[in-house]
């Protein structure tokens, strides 16, 4: 009975251990909250309304469950067309959160028209297509909450790697707090859209994966579930899932090389479909049409954007603006190579590299919110490897004064748990 109780409470105890000891955790979280609030909130409160704000607010107020009849042809009413477009334009999670926020604030409809992207900005403003302050501010505070949670998850993940709260706080803030960011309307925190929610869910997927690195069915389903949430937030959130599938295929044994990726994929597909009910109710042909239209809208928007002056950049320029750290490649490889056999590094690399590579392949113009997932992946990988090495040097110096309980086994708990943990 005692064993059963211990087994039942193990996840809770493991979760509580993340925040232990409480005094230092509270101090670390207070520092993170203060720095993040001081950095982001003043700008969020004073930023003007952007072109996409009205579109996203209207999209959020429409039912995300898509109550229209499933018609393959063009037989909808204008309202039906608009609702369908909203559903295939972006997956649902950010819409659901925004909808809940707006309806909690008593907003059920917006009187103004959507932004006309073919007219200039002044004409749109003159037509009153601006999201009122009382509506855009709560939505931006939702973004800030997501982003703050992402920073906290980065802190918890880095602490799990380096076992040093001060270094973890410093690293998490260095990854997410760019002194030059959050000044425009197209930063992930300011922009009313799916980007800050995506930042949160990608960090959540890293943290969950890092804390459950063993190749077991339970972990595969758990990681797949969180990756499904990321995919249900923005299409490129699915890149994290690709990394998870590769990880389970690479480090499992026997049939698990096939079974665990399939389990993760099934969990991700399940949560994605549950949050996007537009796929149901019309058979396989209908679901295929919705999927096709989702991809088509993405490429349509890309074409529309690149024919304007916004898109007149070479591929090299876009990549260098999105990830200007590329010329650090030699130190990055040198620092990362030494941890290549540690499980925390494998997890972080499989989590980070697919989004970096695929986003850089697909990104067609520089925008800081497009750069956020790329830079986050790169910096979390590089920062965890660099801080781990720094902490190890610190622990190796006699009299360095470290209080690191894992100093004696500098590989840390994740490394200790790592050996043989991926044997299925």
């Amino acid at each position, binding site marked *: 009975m005692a064993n059963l109780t211990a087994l039942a409470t193990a996840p809770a105890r493991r979760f509580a251990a993340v925040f232990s000891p409480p005094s230092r955790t509270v101090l670390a979280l207070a520092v993170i909250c203060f720095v993040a609030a001081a950095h982001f909130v003043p700008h969020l409160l004073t930023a003007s309304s952007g072109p996409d704000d009205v579109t996203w607010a209207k999209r959020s107020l429409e039912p995300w469950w898509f109550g229209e009849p499933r018609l393959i042809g063009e037989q909808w009413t204008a309202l039906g067309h608009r609702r369908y477009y909203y559903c295939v334009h972006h997956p649902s999670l950010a819409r659901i959160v925004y909808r809940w926020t707006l309806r909690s604030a008593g907003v059920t409809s917006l009187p103004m028209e959507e932004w006309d992207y073919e007219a200039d900005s002044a004409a749109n403003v003159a037509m009153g297509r601006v999201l009122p302050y009382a509506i855009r501010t709560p939505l931006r505070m939702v973004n800030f909450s997501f982003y703050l949670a992402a920073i906290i998850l980065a802190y918890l993940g880095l602490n799990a790697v380096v076992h040093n709260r001060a270094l973890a706080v*410093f*690293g998490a803030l*260095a*990854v997410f707090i*760019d*002194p*030059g*960011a959050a*000044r*425009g309307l197209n*930063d992930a925190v300011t922009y009313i859209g799916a980007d800050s929610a995506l930042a949160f869910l990608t960090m959540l997927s890293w943290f969950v994966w890092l804390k459950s690195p063993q190749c077991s069915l339970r972990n595969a389903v758990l990681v797949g579930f969180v990756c499904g949430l990321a995919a249900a937030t923005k299409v490129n959130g699915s890149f994290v899932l690709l990394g998870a599938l590769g990880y389970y295929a690479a480090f499992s044994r026997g049939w698990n090389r096939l079974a665990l990726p399939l389990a993760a994929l099934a969990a991700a597909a399940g949560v994605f479909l549950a949050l996007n009910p537009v796929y149901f109710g019309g058979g396989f042909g209908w679901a295929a049409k919705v999927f096709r239209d989702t991809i088509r809208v993405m490429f349509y928007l890309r074409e529309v954007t690149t024919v304007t002056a916004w898109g007149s*950049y*070479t591929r*090299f*320029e*876009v990549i*260098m*603006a999105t990830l*200007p*750290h*590329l*010329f*650090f*490649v*030699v*130190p*990055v*490889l*040198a*620092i990362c*190579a*030494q*941890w*290549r*056999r*540690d499980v925390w590094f494998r997890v972080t690399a499989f989590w980070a590299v697919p989004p970096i590579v695929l986003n850089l392949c697909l990104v067609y113009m*520089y925008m*800081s919110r497009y*750069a956020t997932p790329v*830079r986050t992946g790169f*910096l979390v990988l*590089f*920062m965890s*490897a*660099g*801080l781990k*090495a*720094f902490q*190890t*040097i610190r*622990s*190796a*110096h006699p009299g360095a004064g470290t209080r690191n309980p894992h100093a004696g*086994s*500098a*590989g840390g708990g994740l*490394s*200790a748990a790592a*050996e043989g943990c991926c044997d299925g």
Partner: protein
Amino acid sequence: MSILDAQPMTAAALVALAAGCLAVLRNPLGALLAVAPLALLVPWAARGVSGEPMAHLSVSAASVWVTLILAKRLRGRARGAVLILAAAAAAAGIYLARLPEAWNSAKWFQQQYGYPYNVADTTYNGYFYIPPLVASSYLLWERRCEWWFWPTAVWAALLLAGAVFLGEARFFQYSLPMQMALVVPLATAAMSRPAPGAGGTGRHPDGGVTWRT
């Protein structure tokens, strides 16, 4: 002067950096690898953001570094002569580059092409180098006892400070002086092996991993 005229000077700067890395690492492949990212990503690939002043500054700064490195390996009059050469290279660079224009590439681009270079969000990329510096600081700490470390560190710090404080429009990812200041010390440290007793290192001299449990 067009960007095409500036390119030979940029190439000369890279050759000088490779020579300096070779003197430090004594390994031709390592020297090439250390300089390769600069060769691939130098400003000539980015519609000519780099101009004549920046190319002058790059050649001058690379020459100063090479002479400082050589001076550490020489004694007596030879060392004095090399140090005089370093001072001359620095003075020529400062004169030719018309500081601070060398760092202010946006102004140069505006003069050449008649419109501002707007691909990058100048504020967003203004501080991109800080997190990688934090992450790789341990490399510098490990190599602080190496003979080449302090000349390189002081040289890089001055170059970086110039870029940070004198550059108005911070297209740092296209700025060769800034790339030199960041990449040369870090890549050299990454490609070299730390001296015994320089502190705990992440890598065993044979490249293995020492700390895994």
